[in-house]
């Protein structure tokens, strides 16, 4: 199956600054793909290249099977795009803008009438007749999502679609994106981990212009979750935690309110051999010892470094 997006060794430089550094990415058709990264990681640059607004310095970028360097109107007709700060003609109303956007795609009047109504409702702008110039940022963002869907795209690309929204608006947009699963490929960049965790099936993490991880979200959590060990003892948890903390393979030791110790380890093998021996040497009752699951946030922080967020 042709991937919806395929990026190979993409490099983008601005003068001496390398915004993207040999990025490889593959977005399968029908997936909801979260493109995570701290501010300045290169997410917007990647999206600008994918939409033909900027050109790669090196590497190849294919969208819906076409090279973006030679992509024409036919490719753009199958794409929906929302930039991070969408710019609208402020003298238009939301309905006028959606009709204008539909007109650019050559959508017939009957279909356009229908879609405009549905999308205005989806964006919560049905009864708003004022001009876009008077809209709040959240209203503009919702209109931005609506206009990106006017052509029922095969590939929907969104740059930080929820960043300007209040909790209800965020939920509405995420629900809407989730409802597209299987029908439209959704590729969206964000730095909000909870959004990715909630609706994405695959995630890529970008840091300093490089993809540091790309995998289905469950696989990614399991992969990094194996680096965490949870130990529960009947008594003496404080002393055991202190002893574990002194070991070279223990990166971080956290104590729960009961007798549970969560250890982030750098060498899972060494930890799984040493911890039972340490429990036995202290004659402590071992209730549980298992690989813990890391949240996406922990995976993210581990991969890109906590100091950046």
């Amino acid at each position: 199956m042709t991937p919806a997006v395929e990026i190979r060794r993409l490099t983008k430089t601005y003068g001496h600054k390398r915004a993207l550094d040999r990025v490889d990415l593959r977005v399968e058709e029908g997936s909801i793909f979260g493109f995570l990264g701290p501010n300045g990681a290169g997410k917007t640059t990647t999206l600008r290249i994918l939409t033909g607004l900027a050109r790669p310095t090196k590497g190849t970028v294919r969208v819906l099977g076409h090279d973006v360097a030679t992509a024409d109107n036919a490719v753009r007709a199958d794409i929906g795009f929302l930039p991070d700060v969408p710019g609208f003609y402020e003298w238009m109303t939301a309905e006028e803008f959606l009709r204008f956007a539909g007109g650019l795609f050559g959508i017939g009047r009957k279909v356009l009438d229908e879609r405009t109504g549905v999308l205005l409702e989806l964006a919560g702008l049905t009864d708003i007749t004022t001009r876009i110039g008077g809209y709040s940022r959240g209203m503009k963002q919702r209109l931005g999502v609506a206009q990106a869907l006017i052509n029922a795209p095969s590939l929907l690309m969104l740059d930080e679609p929820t960043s300007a929204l209040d909790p209800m608006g965020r939920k509405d947009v995420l629900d809407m994106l989730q409802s597209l699963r299987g029908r439209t490929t959704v590729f969206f960049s964000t730095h909000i981990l909870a959004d990715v965790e909630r609706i994405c099936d695959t995630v890529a993490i970008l840091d300093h212009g490089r993809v540091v991880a790309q995998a289905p979200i469950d696989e990614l959590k399991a992969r990094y979750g194996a680096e965490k060990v949870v130990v529960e003892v009947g008594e003496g948890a404080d002393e055991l935690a202190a002893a574990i903390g002194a070991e070279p393979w223990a990166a971080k030791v956290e104590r729960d309110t009961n007798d549970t110790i969560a250890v982030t380890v750098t060498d899972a093998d060494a930890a799984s051999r040493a911890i039972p021996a340490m429990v036995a040497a202290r004659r402590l009752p071992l209730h549980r010892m298992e690989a813990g699951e890391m949240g996406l946030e922990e995976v993210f922080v581990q991969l890109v470094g906590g100091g950046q967020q």
Partner: protein
Amino acid sequence: MSGFAAFVRKETTEILRTWRIWVLPGMLLMFAVTGPFLARYTPEIIGAVGGSQAAALLKAIPKPTYLDSYAQWAKNLTQIVLFAVIIIYGGLISSERKSGTAVLVLTKPVSRTAFVVAKALVHSLFLALAVVLGTLVTWGGTALVFGTAAGGPLWSSAMSWLAFGVLFISIMTLLSALLGSQAGAAGIGLGVFAIISVAGLWEPLTKYSPAGLANAPMVLAAGGESAILWPMVTSLVVSCVLVASAAWAFKTKEL
């Protein structure tokens, strides 16, 4: 093609629904309405406020004719309206880049060439309509005030200026595709106007190049002769080349 048509519709509606509908047509109509009256009554006004010395001076000046009204119109077009065109259209392309609207349009099935050509075309037609309307009003006003108003000098003058105005819309299209700053593009546009005006003093250029249109409207409006066929043809050809260059320049830009 549907994208081009939709964008042309947008550009036209934008003229009708924003400040654009008031500025150029408003300026032209104001000059058109007041021009014939000013041409006819300026000597009387000067005489009334200038005292006996001015009255003696005015006796030596011939009585105003309808050609003075036309000259007034041509002077306003060449000296004020052209400057307004240069300043207004300094941001024709760059303002859409700055506001982010170009991004939403150009990620849809509209090529950058269509984007640039649609803008140059719509605004050239808009200028043509405004100039034709203003010239009609000047013509009618002149006939009303002077009792006679031959059409030839006025229309040949206005049409030669229109070709010059369209040339400047094309120049500003290119400059606004190249530069991000409206003020910067307008500054260079005024510089280009100064160069063309100076070039218009050299006869070979006046005969065949758009420089011939710099002074032609004034000469024609005064009832004089000026061979404008070649300058008009070359001006339209250069306009097309400038718009094509603007499309190429815009294509090479990253948004």
